[in-house]
């Protein structure tokens, strides 16, 4: 099982000091957090994507590409990439580039986005969220798996003779997760493609999460990708840790009470009882999170929201140390013991595993697919003839 951290890049005042980081400080803190997580031995770092204050992560691939250069082992991912309001052509290009510069040490999670105005800012209608997610992702997959694409759809202008570059690393696209909280249609989409499904899990009762994951598993099996228990599942989580439970409680309470999303609402006592938010000692986190596999079946990735609600950088780094040092080794042991059989994947697939599987199935693109004729530079859009199909066979070594 992989254990990782994620940030949604919120710029929040520290209620105990009154300090509000500016955007630059917040970005630099995110980089420090990710690098520290890599050094501490955590498996994954993911960033959200937002296009308005109080957030700074509008460019996930830029952030993650930098981290690819400054980290050694940690898998770089998103929570989430907006599949609705981004142009799928740009997604195909940006994430393939990230895949290459990170040498495959990445994956990504699709989400629809929870901020209404982002849709009209990017020319879309929030009421079309699900159809957008479906059409855009279908195009994204084609751009990664087909060298030349002719395409027409509802939400974007048509494509004629388009090749997304760079081609995916080793001819195999990145592994994709789909994130959903409430919409069964997204779980259905993940199941259809045999992609991973990650439920946010935080800010919700486990009873809801469990139903959605079970639905995804059933549909995964229905679409013939394997048994329900072999589906690739992830969960979100949120914890605040100190060696001593009461210290954690006292320290986090002022942050909890005014936090975005749940501040000024239910008490921390009620909220930690009803949702996966756990404030306490490492053992309490181990006990609680170790039991999640009993609810949703063995799963492959557990992510923790680590820097929310205005926590200062020093505190977040200490949380990472506690998580990596005191929680993850034991939690991994407990969770992995719940894997029902050896043919249930222990972890999400690595790039190397996906390449091996694709080659065995004959679905990998060639190792370095590149079209060597430039048919477009210097021409005008009005140059009417559609581009002749490049001799793709040559690229495949035929």
């Amino acid at each position, binding site marked *: 099982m992989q254990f990782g951290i994620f940030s949604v890049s919120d710029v929040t005042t520290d209620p105990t000091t009154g300090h509000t980081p500016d955007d630059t400080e917040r970005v630099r803190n995110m980089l420090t957090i990710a690098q520290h997580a890599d050094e501490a031995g955590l498996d994954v770092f993911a960033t959200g994507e937002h296009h308005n204050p109080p957030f700074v992560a509008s460019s996930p691939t830029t952030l993650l590409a930098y981290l690819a250069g400054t980290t050694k082992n940690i898998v770089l991912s998103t929570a989430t990439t907006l599949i609705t309001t981004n142009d799928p052509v740009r997604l195909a290009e940006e994430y393939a580039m990230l895949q290459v510069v990170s040498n495959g040490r990445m994956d990504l999670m699709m989400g629809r986005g929870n901020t209404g105005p982002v849709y009209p800012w990017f020319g879309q209608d929030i009421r079309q969220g*699900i*159809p957008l997610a*479906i*059409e855009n992702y*279908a195009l994204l997959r084609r751009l990664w798996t087909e060298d030349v694409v002719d395409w027409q*759809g*509802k939400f974007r202008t048509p494509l004629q003779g388009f090749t997304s570059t760079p081609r995916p690393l080793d001819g195999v696209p990145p592994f994709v997760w789909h994130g959903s909280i409430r919409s*069964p*249609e997204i*779980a*259905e*989409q993940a*199941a*259809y493609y045999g992609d991973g499904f990650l439920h946010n899990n935080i*800010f*919700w*009762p486990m009873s*809801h999460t469990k*139903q959605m994951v079970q*639905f995804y598993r059933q549909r995964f099996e229905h*679409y013939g990708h394997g048994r329900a228990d072999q589906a690739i599942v992830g969960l979100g989580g949120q914890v605040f840790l100190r060696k001593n439970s009461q210290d954690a409680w006292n320290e986090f309470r002022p942050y909890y009470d005014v936090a975005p*999303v*749940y501040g*000024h*609402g*239910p008490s921390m006592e*009620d*909220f930690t009882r*009803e949702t996966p938010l756990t404030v306490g000692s490492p053992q309490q986190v181990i006990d609680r999170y170790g039991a999640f596999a009993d609810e949703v079946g063995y799963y492959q990735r557990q992510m923790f929201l680590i820097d929310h609600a205005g926590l200062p950088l020093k505190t977040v780094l200490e949380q990472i140390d506690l998580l990596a040092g005191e929680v993850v080794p034991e939690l991994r042991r407990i969770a992995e013991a719940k894997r029902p059989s050896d043919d249930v994947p222990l972890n999400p697939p690595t790039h190397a595993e996906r390449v091996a599987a694709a080659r065995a199935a004959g679905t990998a693109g060639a190792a370095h697919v590149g079209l060597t004729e430039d048919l477009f530079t210097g021409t005008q859009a009005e140059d009417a003839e559609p581009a002749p199909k490049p001799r793709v066979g040559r690229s495949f070594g035929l």
Partner: protein
Amino acid sequence: MTSERTLVVISAGLSQPSSTRLLADRLTGAAARELQALGHTVSVEVIELRDHAHAVVDAMLTGFPTGELARVMDTLAKADGVIAVTPLFTTTYSGLFKSFVDIVDKDSLGGMPVLLGATGGTPRHSLALDYSVRPLFAYLHADVLATSVFAATDDWAGDGDRVNPLSARIDRAGRELAQRVSARENPGPADPFAGTPSFTDMLGGA
């Protein structure tokens, strides 16, 4: 068609005793009597919003109801018929009533027979039932009864409307609700997963 019918009664009254609850009880009594006359056994669940006031606000802030309030929502979705009564504050439904309606699952009251009631000091704002309260339930696709009942303070003393007294209005509303509830084949709460289109359908339509 089974003969058991469950009425769920929502009262947003804040005082103990409250005239809002009194009206709700009178409406329930009238509907239950008519249902029994039609051959049904009747069970009644009363929800006093005051008891859930803090939980309602928490659910508004977090996006999900928990504990007792979650059970209330479940009970409401399974009802055969609903009676909802609110005091009028500042010309319209009370804030607590509206907050509760705002957190009800939007799909749970589709086709639900709903009898609306309201109370106030004078009849001055009685039309709030038609221009404020009714639209809330129309939006939720509930089957809102043609008759809604307003009780002003004077109505309780019998000094109110002498031509069309409160008791007659209560009986009329009770009869309408009973007829609707009796005739209804309650499909039960919708399964959020059962209605999910298969992916090939979704892909075709995109």
